[in-house]
């Protein structure tokens, strides 16, 4: 209400329409299914601004990637230093694994918990063949950066800093005590 135009009302309305039994069961005609999808999409887009406003104080600062399931995300591929915000809607601490589309072109990634400052173990996993098939000609991420987001607080979020470095940068960082600890 404070931010005026940023509201979850559009998604509430789309969800209201989607309570029709045809939407719940999937027995609608194809053009109706397309319309339901469009309404939900528009509602979600506005809600992203709501979340961004809550977390960042600005409706446009937070980025979302809708196609992480097919390893497609321009933001994580093209940004060398960024922060991952992991929000936990449950009322208890949980662990989760985060998988981010990246291009593994002669660089390396370091992940750090922004609250504790501790380095977080990560792994680069090549994109699978079924992902390439389902992605068709979209995107060119050849790998996923995988790390464990542990102990995400209940109804709150954790932040992880991801920094892509080329190999010469990594060599310099080995003098860093924290980096040494992670390697060990």
């Amino acid at each position, binding site marked *: 209400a404070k931010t005026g135009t940023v509201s979850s009302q559009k998604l509430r309305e789309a969800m209201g329409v989607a309570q029709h039994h045809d939407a719940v069961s999937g027995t609608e005609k194809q053009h109706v299914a397309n319309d339901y999808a469009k309404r939900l999409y528009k509602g979600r887009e506005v809600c992203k601004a709501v979340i961004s406003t809550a977390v960042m104080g600005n409706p446009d600062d937070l980025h979302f990637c809708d196609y992480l399931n097919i390893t497609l995300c321009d*933001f994580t591929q093209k940004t060398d230093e960024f*922060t991952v915000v992991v929000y936990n809607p449950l009322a208890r601490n949980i662990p989760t694994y985060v998988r981010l589309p990246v291009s593994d072109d002669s660089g390396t990634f370091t992940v750090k918990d922004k609250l504790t400052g501790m380095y977080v*173990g990560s792994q680069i996993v090549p994109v699978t063949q079924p992902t390439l098939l389902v992605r068709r000609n979209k995107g060119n991420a050849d790998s996923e950066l995988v790390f464990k987001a542990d102990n995400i607080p209940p109804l709150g979020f954790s932040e992880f800093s991801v920094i892509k470095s080329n190999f010469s940068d990594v060599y310099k960082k080995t003098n860093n005590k924290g980096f040494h600890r992670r390697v060990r």
Partner: protein
Amino acid sequence: GGDVTIANEYFKVVFDGSNGQMKTIANIESGITLPVMQQMFWYNASMGNNISLQKSGAYVFRPNSSTPFHCTQDGKIELEVLQGDTPLVQEVVQKFSDWAWQVVRLYSGMRYIEAEWTIGPIPFDDGYGKEIISRFYFPLQTNGEFYTDANGREILKRKKNFRPTWTLNQSEPVAGNYYPVNSRIYTNDTKTQFTILTDRSQGGSSLFNGTLELMMHRRLFGDDAKGVGEPLNETGQFDDGLIARGKHFILVDSLSDAAKHHRLLAEEIYMSPLVSFYANVSTNDRRS
């Protein structure tokens, strides 16, 4: 040629190197080792027959035979170990056919086996409507009984060819035993439970003792005449058929631990964390 094994603190999954199929699942905590085989099949969708003109469609699932076809050509699955003995995630890719894939994952510290299936575009040039299923076989004496959730709420006991409130004359041996699965399906004997959690609503059943199956994708050429008026034949962006991708979360547990584990995992799946990003520029860092 040799067997392939992936393992974390909780589970060990062995794949048969000769045919690519899942071979055993071991629950390390409880000491249970269960021989498990999995295959992907397709039911040929009915276009009606002498007994009934009813076609398979959006409302009605009706295969024209109880015997499904293999998605593979010869029952063999191509196997690729993408990540072997690595610290965070281990992955095995299974190719059942050009349009049926699965990636089995074990994450360090996580008490489940993740099977990410990718189905499609379902081929249609043979003119047969296809309803694709994943079926697991395991040697448990389940007496035709299994459990599914009702709209994500109460879990109900299902029994093959049986209805609790009337005498059933079963005329459809497959469709008549399929039930909605909104979050999970499981079956057990007196000691062990096999549970699958889904990431979306699917149809599922246990047609034989020690089996569970879930329908993942369909492509049909007939309408069931219940009001939709068009066949379930989404052609997708490239006009060759839709590709669907989803996950099954598999648990093998002792009967005493099973409920605790699948209920906690279900919370984490169905209220899963939301991931978003911001660039590390100076103003954002100040906020942080």
